[in-house]
Every structure is written in C-alpha cells, then in structure tokens.
C-alpha cells in the first residue's frame, strides 16, 4: 500500500536522477522530503539542492538539465505559479525535466485541496501534461515520462499531475517494478549538447528577435507533435513488464455509449462507477478520461464522441470570463464533426469539493432529458441555484 506522493518518490528512487532541486509546498512536500531521505541514507547517487524558493528550484533544474543531468522536482499551487516564468524557458531549452505536479487550488482564498487551477495556466508553457487517476498510474507515468521527455524526437519536459490529497495522500495498492527493471527501462540520459562539455562550448538562452524566434518555437511545436507516436511505443514497451497500458485518452465503455462524461484525474473513478450502475439500468452511459492534456488527444476524442446523443464536460478549474480549459479543448476537437454533438459544460470540485455519484447521475439525467444550457453549470454549489444546476 502506498500513496500517490510516495509512489512518485519511490519511482524517483528507482530512476535515481542526477539532480533534484525542490522547495516544500503542500500537498507535494512528501516527495522532496522522502527523496532527501533517500539521499541522506545513500540510497541514490543524486545531488539534492534544497533551494530557497520554487523559482530557484525550477531554475536550478534547468541549469542541471542543460548540463546533461537527469533532473526531477515537484510542486503544487502557488509554487507552480511562482515557477511560471521559467517553464517556457525550460521547454525552449528542450530540457527534459520530470515534474511531479500535485494539483492544488490557487489562492486566494488559501486552500490546500485539489483542483486544476495550478496546472491549467501552464498548458501553454510548452510542457507535456499527463493527468493520473490513481497512485499506480502516477508510478507508471513517472517511468514513461523519463523516456518520453528524453526521446530525441520529443525533448520536452513533462508534468506528471495527480490530484492533491485525493491521490497524493490516500493509500492504495500499488504494484512496483524491481529496481533492475526500472533501471533497464529508463536507461541513462544521453544529452546532445551539454553545457558541461567545455571542449564543445554552447550558449543557452540566446537573445533572438523576430528573425529567428518563430522558427525556434516551431521546433518545439514539432517536438510536441511527435509525442503521440513516441508515447504509443513507450506505453507498449512498459506494458511488457507491467501488463498496464495507458492510452492518451482513457475510454471507459465509451465506444457504444450514447451519453458521455468527459473528465480528468481522480474524479473519474466516481463517474466510472456511475456508468456501471447506469449500464445495469439499461442506459448506454460511458466515460472519457483525458490523460494527456498536452498534447491534447483531439483526434481520439473526436472519433469517440462522434454520433453521441449527448456529451457533458466536467472541468475542475475555471477560465473566468471564458470557456473552462477542458471544455474548450473538447469543443474545439468536435468542431470538425459534420453532425453537431450536443454538449453541456460543468464546473465541479473547486478547492477540493468532492464529486458524488449522485452528481454524475444528475449529469447523465440531464443529457438524457435533453436539458442543455448555453452557459456552464455548477456541480455541488451550496447555493440553491436551479438555473445553474446547484443543489
């Protein structure tokens, strides 16, 4: 039995990265704390840099990564926000950093519980974003992320996201691979242009005006576009050891479904249970869990949502004044369909509010009753607000 945080830390121990630079913040603190323990007990060969801020944590990671080191770190919420400036720099340097992002709501008000308001603002930073449903998936994803980030056709840093407290702190059975198997799977990093190669000096972080900036961004876009192809091979390869394969878009009883809920991360479990119950009642319900938010599996989603009687998208973070991130992606993916799929947007779970089976049932009922509104509805608000779907 282990938790999402400890599963992440255990994967780190087995990967044995060269450098970890981190700063504590709830709910990801356990990751660096556990790792510092591994270092103190000589269980890894890594340098642990106990920096004075998250901004310095990610900066030190960038410095170490371009030096040729394999680098990992973790953070949450305001810590992630403080690092914001450096994320696009890391991506542009093609620094394959592995980042344990334990999702927590952004202040204010201060709240330590889960929503996706910390990672979603980073969706345009040029990093790969993987969202995990449970601790097992966190563990497996760290191993996949190392290979994916360092693949020469990708060379892009990866956020491995898990829901704060729900996944990070709850204990559940997690199957671990042997140290030897992990070592064999992840191999060693071979950096192409390491800063520490003093015989072949390179400059990182150049000054570039309109003459070349666009072209450099384009190479990042190409690297991200290569992710689906590279990832498909990697998840197959890891499945040879684990028996577990993770598609970019996790489809649960979705192919023959008439009604779909699209959701991410830990709340998916509740929806899957409700799908099973509804199926028993003869309702063709299904669920799509978006695992890769970047790159977004738009084609897969389009195929699976095509011809459905109704689709509900449940976002765990808002884009105040606009369409919430997941709904925006789903709508964009479905735009190319010749026949429009009816779609209802929902906002749920902000600040760690739970999603209950009755909530998911109500969402399915709405789809079945053809009850749509032009604006997003709220799930589980305290206020009586029939118009917006409040309780």
């Amino acid at each position, binding site marked *: 039995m282990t938790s999402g945080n400890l599963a992440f830390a255990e994967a780190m121990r087995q990967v044995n990265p060269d450098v970890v630079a981190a700063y504590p913040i709830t709910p990801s603190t356990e990751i660096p704390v556990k790792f510092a323990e591994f270092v103190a007990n000589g269980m890894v060969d890594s340098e642990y840099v106990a*920096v004075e801020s998250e901004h310095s944590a990610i900066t030190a990671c960038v*410095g170490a990564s371009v030096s040729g080191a394999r680098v990992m770190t973790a953070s949450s919420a305001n810590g992630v926000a403080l690092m914001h400036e450096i994320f696009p720099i890391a991506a542009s340097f093609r620094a394959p950093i592995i980042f344990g992002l334990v999702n927590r709501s952004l202040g204010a008000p201060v709240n330590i519980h889960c929503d996706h308001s910390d990672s979603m603002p980073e969706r345009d930073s040029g990093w790969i974003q993987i969202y995990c449903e449970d601790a097992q998936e966190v563990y497996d994803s760290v191993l996949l992320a190392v290979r994916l980030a360092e693949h020469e056709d990708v060379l892009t840093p990866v956020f491995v996201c898990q829901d704060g407290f729900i996944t990070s702190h709850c204990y559940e059975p997690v199957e671990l691979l042997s140290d030897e198997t992990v070592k064999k799977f992840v191999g060693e990093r071979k950096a192409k242009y390491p800063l520490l190669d003093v015989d072949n000096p390179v400059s990182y972080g150049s000054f570039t005006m309109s003459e*070349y900036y666009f072209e450099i961004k384009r190479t990042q876009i190409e690297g991200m576009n290569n992710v689906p192809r590279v990832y498909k091979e990697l998840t197959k390869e890891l499945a040879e050891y684990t028996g577990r394969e993770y598609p970019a878009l996790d489809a649960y009883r979705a192919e023959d479904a008439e009604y779909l809920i699209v959701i991410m991360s830990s709340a998916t479990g509740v929806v899957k249970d409700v799908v099973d119950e509804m199926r028993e009642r003869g309702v063709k319900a299904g669920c799509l869990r978006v695992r890769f938010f970047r790159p977004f599996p738009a084609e897969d989603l389009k195929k699976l949502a095509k011809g459905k009687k109704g689709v509900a998208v449940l976002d765990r973070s808002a884009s105040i004044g606009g369409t919430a991130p997941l709904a925006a992606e789903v709508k964009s993916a479905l735009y190319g369909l010749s026949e429009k799929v009816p779609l209802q947007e929902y906002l749920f779970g902000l600040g760690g509010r739970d999603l209950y089976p009755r909530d998911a049932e109500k969402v399915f009922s709405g789809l079945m009753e053809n009850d749509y509104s032009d604006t997003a509805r709220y799930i589980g608000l305290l206020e009586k607000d029939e118009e917006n779907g409040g309780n």
Partner: protein
Amino acid sequence: MAGINLKELTKKQNPLTEGHRMCPGCGAPTAVRQALMAVEDPVVVVGATGCLEVSTTVYPYSAWRVPFMHVAFENAGAGVSGVEAAHRVLSRKGLVREKIKFVAFGGDGGTYDIGLQSLSGALERGHDFTYICYNNQGYMNTGAQRSSATPISANATTSPAGSAIPGKLQRAKNLTEIVAAHDIPYVAQTTLHDPMDLIAKVKRAVETPGPAFVNVLVPCPLFWKIDSGDQMKVCKLAADSRFWPVYEVIEGKHVLSYKPKTPVPLEDFLRAQGRYSHLFKKDRERMDLVAQGQADVDREWERLLKKCAG
C-alpha cells in the same frame, strides 16, 4: 599578485570574441576579460539578463568561447547552483571533466535588486562558484533607470533630476557587506582602476573552494555620461576619492587592497560625470549635496578602516 604576469596573460584568448554588441567604453566586457584572464581551469559562465547577456548572445551568433547559459533576470544564483550540482554528480560518475570553474555574471539590477534572493540562497548553500556583479549602478539595458546600487543624487530616468527633486534621494545599498554577512570564504570589491587588481581578485575567488563574490564597479558611458575613452580614468577617480573602496573579505577578515596616497575630493569624481551635472549648474548648484556625499564617503571609509583593523 604572485604568479600573475600580465604580459603573459595578454596572450591568452579572450573568452569573449570581438564583434560582440556592447557599447564602446562599456566596462562590462573589460571586466569579463580581466576576470577570466587568470582562470586556468575550463570555465562555464552563467549570466543574468542584462546588457552583457543580450549583447553577447545575438542568435545565431554567440560571443562566448566558453559554455554560457542565461535563464532569466532574477536567477543567475539558482542557475549556477543547478549547473554546479550537475557537475558534482556527473564528475563523480566520470562523465564530465573533474575540474571546471563556475562563474556567474549579473548586473547590479540582477544582483542588488531582483536577483538578491537567488544569490543569497546560492551563497548559503555553499555551491562552489564565483559570482561577479558588474555594477554600473543602474538598469542600463532598459535605459538608465535607478537601482538600489544607484548612488544618492545621481540622475537616472526613474529618479530624474528635476526642478523639485535633485536626482536619487536614497543612498546605495551596501551589497558587498550584505554578501560578506553570509560568511562565505571570499568577498571582494573593486573597479577597473588597475587591471592587475581585478585579475588577482577573481583568480583568488575561483581558486577558493565554496562561494565567492566580487563586486566590480564598471562605468556605463551612456548613464554616467562620460567619454567612452575615460573608463579607466573615472574608475581611478572612484577608487582615489574612496567613493568605491577596493578591498577584500577573506574568511571573514576585511583587508584593504588599495589606499590612495592622496585622496581626491568626491567632487572630482562627480564632476567627471554628466549624471551629476545638475549639482553643478550655475545659479542652481547643490554644493550641500556634494558635501553630504563627501561626509557619507568619509564615514564609510572610517567604518571600513575599523573593520580592517579589527
């Protein structure tokens, strides 16, 4: 300065190529060249955002003959920490050369102001690196704004000398002493008055295990409003007027490196630069501020002498 032969050193290749885009008369490239001249081991340089960084790395070119990394403005200390940590582990594994020196360059904006936390963290953690602040006393890359290194009464674009306010109203922060308070093995303050001084100080800094810091006063001809050929002359006035004392703090002990035989009045240093010209305007001169500046210099000099004696 034992073991340093300037004639020999001039034969050594400059880590910066010709053709970089720094202004004529700028003190920063002079400081870079002198600083790295006497470093024998290979060097990896980390730079904070600033004139030096933008003018030496105009893509697809780079003026750096040594490895160079710039991440952002406020984090050269953290960046060099990561590089140095990577070197420690990769050299343990035999994957990189064992002996590499790490030198970070930041302007006063990136060091005194926005980068102070990052620098302080790196110093406290004890990374083996040398941080060189090329201090031209303001934000030159954005056009001569005041920083916490800008001296009192200087005319900067965000502390302009106007009819109501005579330039910057606050004294500069004493960063050298703030860094020394971190109790690191080596701290120094100097300027470009004598090439041998900076060469020797940086040599000592990089050869000292653990963190070292050198604060070097360098003119910006545009902000200081001096002729581009007067770089060394103005630096000499800074040292000779005791406006910018040249000293070291070695293992916590203050040591004066340069005592002007006949100190020149601060007024000579101020009159040499256009950024103080408002103090000397006919009918509107502010000799009271000049006198106050002189009193500040005298007081700080006495404080420093006491530290050196103690």
